[in-house]
């Protein structure tokens, strides 16, 4: 097997609990594993509610914060042990698109500044004309024209245009991976499709993989290949996007999918009554064991003793729940028919 392009091994991030601090620690991300190969390019969704650790994961991959434990390997090298050249390559090949297209621009510069900076930083072009041609090409990929947008100030552009320009900026650097942290949550519904479509085209035509970080399972369902659903820093369920969303196994994921409002007035919110436990209790009550225990309708005593590992529940489909401890020994076929 070839070395994966990006590999996350037992990635863990713990906040707080330092010297002289008595406050309880917050485990933002616990034992996260992921392997992303260069080919075929994939859109990997990291989903979960706020506080589930999905942005922590993005920040770790982008190198904004250091992991407490575990490693991030890029082309087989730990990003903390990279030399200057490798680090530069990593910085160029792993790009980011952030949530808020209003905050990422400096309002005092024309928008072409973001492209000029990138080109200068990585010495991408030898002349102004060449630079201009590169920018134009990148803008065309996202459906914009240079003369329409480049000389404007950020406030003169719509949210959708700004977000597309951020994707164009990332694309300009010929990345292998784009970390997209909630790229469509601030964009209107009618423009959302356009940005998602750009992501699909970059994957199919330019072989760029995405770490698509979102709380919105319905957009993940429309474009994603692989999904990891986080609950309070741990993976509740992972697998092929369509399988996970159509046949959720983990009780949390089932609750999550039942809670998505259906755009049909005759179909009411499904599922049973929700157990709501207040956040403070949730955080502190489960030091060991399953994080979902306080809200789980199927909880058992063993759920408190140790954190359930990921059990195999189908082809490329795993769920961290003891409900599947016995079944996972069986063959996959019986499981699928059961579902």
């Amino acid at each position: 097997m070839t070395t994966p392009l990006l590999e996350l091994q037992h990635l863990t991030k713990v906040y707080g609990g330092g010297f002289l601090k008595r406050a309880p620690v917050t485990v933002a991300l616990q034992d996260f594993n992921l392997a992303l190969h260069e080919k075929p390019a994939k859109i990997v969704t990291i989903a979960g509610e706020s506080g589930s650790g999905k942005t922590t994961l993005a920040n770790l991959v982008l190198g904004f914060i250091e992991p407490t434990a575990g490693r991030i390997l890029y082309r087989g090298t730990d990003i903390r042990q990279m030399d200057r050249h490798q680090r530069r390559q990593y910085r160029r090949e792993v790009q980011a698109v952030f949530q808020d297209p209003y905050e990422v621009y400096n309002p005092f510069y024309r928008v072409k500044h973001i492209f000029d900076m990138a080109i200068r930083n990585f010495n991408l072009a030898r002349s102004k004309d060449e630079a201009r041609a590169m920018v134009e090409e990148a803008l065309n990929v996202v459906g914009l024209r240079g003369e329409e947008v480049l000389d404007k100030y950020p406030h003169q552009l719509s949210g959708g245009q700004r977000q597309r320009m951020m994707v164009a900026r990332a694309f300009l650097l010929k990345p292998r991976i784009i970390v997209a942290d909630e790229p469509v949550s601030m964009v209107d519904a009618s423009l959302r499709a356009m940005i998602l479509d750009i992501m699909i085209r970059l994957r199919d035509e330019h072989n760029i993989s995405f770490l698509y970080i979102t709380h919105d399972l319905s957009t993940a369902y429309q474009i994603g290949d692989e999904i990891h659903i986080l609950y309070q820093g741990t993976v509740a369920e992972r697998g092929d996007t369509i399988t996970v969303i159509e046949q959720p196994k983990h009780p949390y994921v089932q609750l999550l999918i039942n809670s998505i409002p259906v755009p049909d007035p005759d179909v009411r919110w499904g599922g049973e009554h929700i157990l709501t436990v207040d956040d403070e209790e949730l955080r502190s009550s489960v030091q060991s064991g399953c994080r979902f225990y306080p809200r789980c309708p199927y909880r058992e005593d063993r759920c408190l003793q140790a954190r359930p590992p990921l059990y195999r529940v189908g082809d490329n489909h795993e769920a961290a729940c003891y409900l599947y401890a016995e079944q996972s020994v069986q063959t996959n076929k019986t499981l699928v028919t059961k579902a």
Partner: protein
Amino acid sequence: MTNTVFSISSQNTVSPNDIVLRVEHLKVYYATPLGDVRAVDDVSFDVYQGEILGLVGESGCGKTTTAMAILRLVQPPGRIVDGHIWLDGTDVVSLSERELRRFRWEKISLIPQGAMNSLNPVLRVSEQIRDVIEDHEGRQPRKALKERILELLHMVGLPSRVYDMYPHELSGGMKQRVCIAMAIALNPTLIIADEPTSALDVVVQRVVGETLLRVKEQLGISMILIGHDMGLMAQLADRVAVMYAGHLVEIAPVRQLFKTPQHPYTQLLIEAIPSIKERKPLKLTEGLTHDLRNPPQGCIFQSRCPHVMERCRIHPPSLQEVSPKHRVACYLYEEC
């Protein structure tokens, strides 16, 4: 309460008693150096007793400005240029600042956008709710007041211990429900909820949504629910009004709107909802909204409309009834 609404629809006549709020030809403009931005341009609609009216549209279409005008909270450079807002027989537009102080919260209350940030961080939940009550009704006996506040908290599904807690001790969904409790404290006629769940996760969003429904059913309070999530609208609203670039383009009972959307913009909105049931190719739409400072002559949606005709560019269509209670502003339905 829903019964009264149904009886109205069957008779197809609305007695004035059932209308709690009537907005007539409302115009709100924001002054800029390059001319007025027409944020709300000639909007008229009614809200009936005990219903939730959803107000949807993309950001910048004037939903929040409409709500602020109803509360008379439009801030300069914005101003109400024209129109009337009738609530319980009084024209809100003509009220003085003094009268407004009574009117707000007693007749009409607001659950603001990002309500969790609107609570005072240094006051306990109970003190904040007490302030609302005592400011309007004068000093109250302690014991009765505490019981009343606890009852409000139970109404929105919060445990009693929230009474003594500070906002930072609560989660986002709980803070949002505290805001709902404050909004219903004085039993107003109308509640305006501005994107009450936009910052919340789906599970919490559902809890807050179900709380709003319970409040509506048990107290019979009418609500205007502002939002852009069509899925949530389908779950919560009784009728939905669609706004585009400051204009009301369609208003209909929620089932009709989702089954037979008439205006091209509404159709676009409904098609753009990402589905969780089937994977379908993304629907792309081209075109940008015009500059709100100088709207085009004719229909407001002409630059993005797939069915645009010659007459759309000359004169704007007005809201016409296409079926009972279903009105749409589009020439496609003018003759039928």
